[in-house]
């Protein structure tokens, strides 16, 4: 501790020391270091614009020192502020070093004073604001607000574009119709399966699957192709179910099916 500090400590009166101790006990009640600084500044009993930042820095450092003695855990931002104030104090005490960069001690002190003054001003106006005549306490709204009937009037609108798009949608749907029409020349696997289930019981001997094509589907190539594919797929399905046996002598030779007897493995 420097001589000046010791001198400073001795200067603090009993009342101030008691006040400082009260501050420490109540440290949780402070909203950060700026709030604490503002409280400490009140001991100077001067206009905030004429406050001695140097004195305030000493007060703050003394506060932190005491907190340490009492082994109080101070939040990090209080310690950051302490370190910064120690730096500021040295800058304010020492003659300015022309080689030093950055703002001068006076500039930093002036800004801190501004911050304190601004915070105090905000607290003052906040109190004034809360003391105003307030709704629900000093003045009141209509007790029975009348229901404003909302008459809903709906108008419908459509543009020519909507209309045309709507029409286009329907006509486009028509163009998809081949899907449906086309079913005329499609023999589905389900149909083939149903047909073969009814007939396979009579196939005790090997029979060409082409003999199972439905009547009228043999001549038209398109229909024949579809019926053949469906019947072949149905035969495979029946073989999988264990109802028939299926064989082909060689590639592209006729495919033959035969009923598979129960119990015959």
């Amino acid at each position, binding site marked *: 501790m420097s001589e000046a500090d010791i001198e400073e400590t001795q200067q603090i009166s009993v009342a101030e020391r008691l006040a400082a101790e009260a501050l420490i006990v109540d440290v949780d009640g402070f909203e950060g270091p700026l709030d604490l600084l503002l409280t400490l500044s009140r001991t100077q009993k001067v206009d905030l614009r004429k406050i001695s930042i140097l004195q305030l820095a000493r007060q703050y450092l003394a506060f932190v020192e005491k907190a340490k003695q009492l082994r109080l855990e101070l939040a990090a931002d209080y310690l950051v502020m302490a370190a910064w104030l120690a730096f500021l104090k040295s800058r304010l005490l020492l003659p300015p070093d022309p080689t030093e960069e950055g703002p001068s001690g006076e500039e930093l002190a002036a800004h801190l004073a501004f911050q304190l003054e601004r915070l105090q001003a905000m607290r003052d106006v906040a109190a004034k604001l809360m003391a105003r005549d307030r709704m629900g306490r000093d003045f*009141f709204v209509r007790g029975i607000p009348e229901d404003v009937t909302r008459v809903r009037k709906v108008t419908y609108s459509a543009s020519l574009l909507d209309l045309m798009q709507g029409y286009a949608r329907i006509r486009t749907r028509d163009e998809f119709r081949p899907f449906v029409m086309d079913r005329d020349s499609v023999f589905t696997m389900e149909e083939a399966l149903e047909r073969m289930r009814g007939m396979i019981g009579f196939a005790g001997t090997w029979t060409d699957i082409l003999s199972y094509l439905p009547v009228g589907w043999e001549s038209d190539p398109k229909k024949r192709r579809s019926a053949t594919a469906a019947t072949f797929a149905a035969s495979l399905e029946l073989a999988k179910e264990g109802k028939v046996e299926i064989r082909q002598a060689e590639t592209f030779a006729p495919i033959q099916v035969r009923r598979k007897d129960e119990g015959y493995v």
Partner: protein
Amino acid sequence: MSEGIETQEESLFEAPPMAEQERMCEAILFASAEPVTIKEMNARMPHGCDAAEAMVHLRKRYEGRGVRVVKVGDAWAMRTAPDLGFLMQKEMVETRKLSRAAIETLAIIAYHQPVTRAEIEEIRGVSVSRGTVDQLLEMEWIRFGRRRMTPGRPVTFVVTSEFLDHFGLESARDLPGLKELRSAGLLENRPPPGAMPLTPSDEDDEEAAEGQSELFED
């Protein structure tokens, strides 16, 4: 503070002037959620007040105003003047898009008129709800045309001059054909590649196609 009230109750002080009592009644009636009796008012106002007399003045003051002082049972309330009830209506005009079903039905009527309900259903591939047709009739965009001279003599629908007005058309003939719709990019929905081409014989069973065959020229 409680002392002050006690002193007032002892009526050492005179009651507030009548004009002030009238103000008090006014504020109480305004802020209360329910009608207030004279007794309640007197209980709330400073000692010595005469709410009954103040109410006579207040009632007179509001005569002919937009707000009136009315008696509800044995209590008082403030109400808006009955002749201004119309101001308590807030008209909200909501513009809604016509439903897809309505637009499609309207389009079919416009392109195929005169057209029967059965024909509309055949073209749309779904039944047309009564509500949809009623809505279009109500909007005066369609009306009944002549009955079709076929068995059952079904009614037909045609579009109205209001419809033409709304869509800025001189006649239904001015509606763009499919070719124009396509060139305008409105028929982007082409059938997927690989779909079987439409053969003339397949289309035979489609009645409605006849009337619109000119729309299909590509």
